């Protein structure tokens, strides 16, 4: 068992793949000479050379499209989009090509592409650089979407992504790179589509993913002091979605709050809440509540930004007002 950061865990996963699979190469903006905007690939260019570590122009669409083409031709590319905000410039390639080529070709083609990107707000980068758009992509059949919250999950999910034959959006949270956690020395994977109970409890289920998992865990600690035992379900992947584990938890606790960082309107949490009400209605002792970000473009000012993003206080307030804790 070794302790490492979220950043180090992802670097480790990439390095392993580069070392063991000749088909793997990395490409993206500033991943080589600069070392990656979030320093995940620092040193890689020197270690693996320019054939495997490719700096690209700021051309998101062709970078993702080239990843798709190379994947169809038998390689295993990892494309890095510096942040998920920039994925909008490549959205046609992601949604119309990566996700659909297998289906539209009647199963003739496959696109084993990993798109690594950085999601989330909280760093005062304002409206265009603070979005959490992974839920949009999770609504597209043909894509898979991973949203790790810990170093253990990040490495395990990344390994699973390398073993998968489908296009995967791998969304890393910008504020989690420095998070430390235990990672076993022996090899393991975290299967795509398996949620994780990050805290056990009997009174209420908090469903979250990525950084919101940690916010939910802190809220659970506070609730415990009031004698309420919250269970925290970390989705780990939005698509496939582990419906079973969510439903199991809700059947046990009979109460549920779904938390996400993005805008509440149309957020992926609505999908989860709707699913819970369809599949566990008779077990519920109150409405399935939702907590999302403010329905406004992300403001720059620290106080406004904090007001826009869910935190422990908002979780506890929502639980009391809506869920009836």
């Amino acid at each position: 068992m070794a302790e490492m950061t979220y950043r180090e865990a992802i670097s480790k996963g990439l390095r392993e793949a580069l070392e063991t699979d000749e088909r793997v190469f990395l490409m993206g903006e500033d991943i080589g000479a600069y070392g990656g905007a979030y320093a995940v690939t620092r040193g890689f260019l020197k270690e693996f050379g320019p054939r495997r570590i490719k700096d690209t122009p700021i051309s998101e669409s062709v970078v993702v499209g080239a990843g798709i083409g190379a994947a169809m031709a038998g390689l295993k590319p990892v494309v890095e989009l510096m942040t998920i905000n920039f994925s909008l410039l490549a959205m046609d390639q992601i949604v119309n090509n990566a996700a659909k080529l297998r289906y539209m070709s009647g199963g003739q083609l496959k696109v084993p592409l990993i798109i690594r990107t950085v999601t989330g707000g909280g760093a005062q980068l304002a409206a265009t650089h603070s979005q959490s758009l992974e839920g949009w992509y999770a609504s597209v059949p043909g894509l898979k979407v991973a949203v790790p919250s810990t170093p253990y999950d990040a490495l395990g999910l990344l390994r699973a992504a390398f073993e998968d034959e489908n296009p995967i959006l791998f969304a890393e949270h910008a504020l989690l790179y420095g998070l430390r956690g235990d990672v076993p020395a022996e090899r393991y994977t975290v299967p795509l589509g398996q949620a994780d109970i990050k805290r056990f409890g009997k009174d209420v289920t908090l469903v979250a993913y990525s950084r919101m998992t940690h916010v939910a865990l802190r809220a659970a600690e506070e609730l415990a002091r009031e004698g309420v035992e919250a269970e925290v379900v970390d989705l780990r992947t939005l698509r496939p979605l582990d419906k079973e584990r969510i439903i199991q938890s809700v059947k046990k606790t009979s109460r549920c709050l779904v938390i996400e960082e993005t805008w509440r309107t149309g957020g992926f949490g609505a999908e989860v809440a709707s699913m819970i009400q369809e599949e566990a209605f008779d077990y519920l002792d109150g409405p399935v509540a939702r907590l999302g970000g403010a329905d406004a473009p992300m403001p720059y000012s620290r106080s406004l930004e904090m007001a826009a993003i869910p935190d422990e206080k908002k979780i506890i307030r929502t639980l009391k007002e809506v869920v009836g804790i």
Partner: protein
Amino acid sequence: MKVVEKIEKKQVAEFYRQMLLIRRFEEKAAEMYMRGKIRGFLHLYIGEEAIAVGAISVLKPEDYIVTHYRDHGHAIARGMDPKVIMAELFGKATGSSKGKGGSMHLFDASKNFLGGYAIVGAQLPIAVGLALASRQLQNGRVVLCFFGEGAVNEGEFHESMNLASLWKLPIVFFLENNLYGMGTHIDNTHAGGRDVYKAVGDYNMASHRVDGMDVMAVHEATLEAVDGVRSGEGPFFLEALTYRFRGHSMADPINYRDKAEEAEWRRKDPIDSLKRWALEEGVLTKNYVETIEEGVEKELQAAVEFADQSPDPPLDSLMQDVYA
């Protein structure tokens, strides 16, 4: 007709057969569309046959092709069976994509025909990736990427030209300039004027224009382009001037084009031109030409019958192949 030295009779006959097969396939498809057998969008390649046939004749089986949504001609020229294409247009289980792709999305992985792409310009980044794989794997494959002049104004065009040239990737970018993006003339959409092939000079890429109504000229120009690209000189940009004789799709009444302009282009019909030349020069005999024509009719008759008699896709195939 450009006289290409050392071209074999067999090759000329094959050009004629393929172009005619495409033309008659498209006419059959239009007929089946009118009869309600084919639905959705149907974009016909009639008038542009010399490009697909001349260019694709140059490729090796391991080379890749990607193209746009007006893709039947390229698919046929690559050797896809007209039966499975027609069945796909009919939306049948025996179609090339099992009835899930339709006219705009033809694929044959076994022939490295990797797709019709229905979002304008979306195949250009894919071509860059296929060529990048060829480079990474050192397998000598080249990519032939077709697109229309409408794609030239998309951002992806410029991203792809830049990256392909920067990395010296083995791609022939083949612009089929038929002058109209749907119903809008190039003069109203492109600031660079009519000489679109010159637009890539700024990307440090070699380019050339060819008569898109002359299959021999297209063949020869593509041969030179592919040779250079395969030997590692980086991408090459070919522009062919052409004209689609029909509307943008079956829904297009073509009220934006001048009848005199249409008539002028029809006089350059690539199939008539080749036939006339081949007969006049004694390259092909009248008998042989007739044999080809009969063969094409039989093949298409069989294709329509196959498509018509094939079953619809089973409903449980709806959720198949969403994921690998």
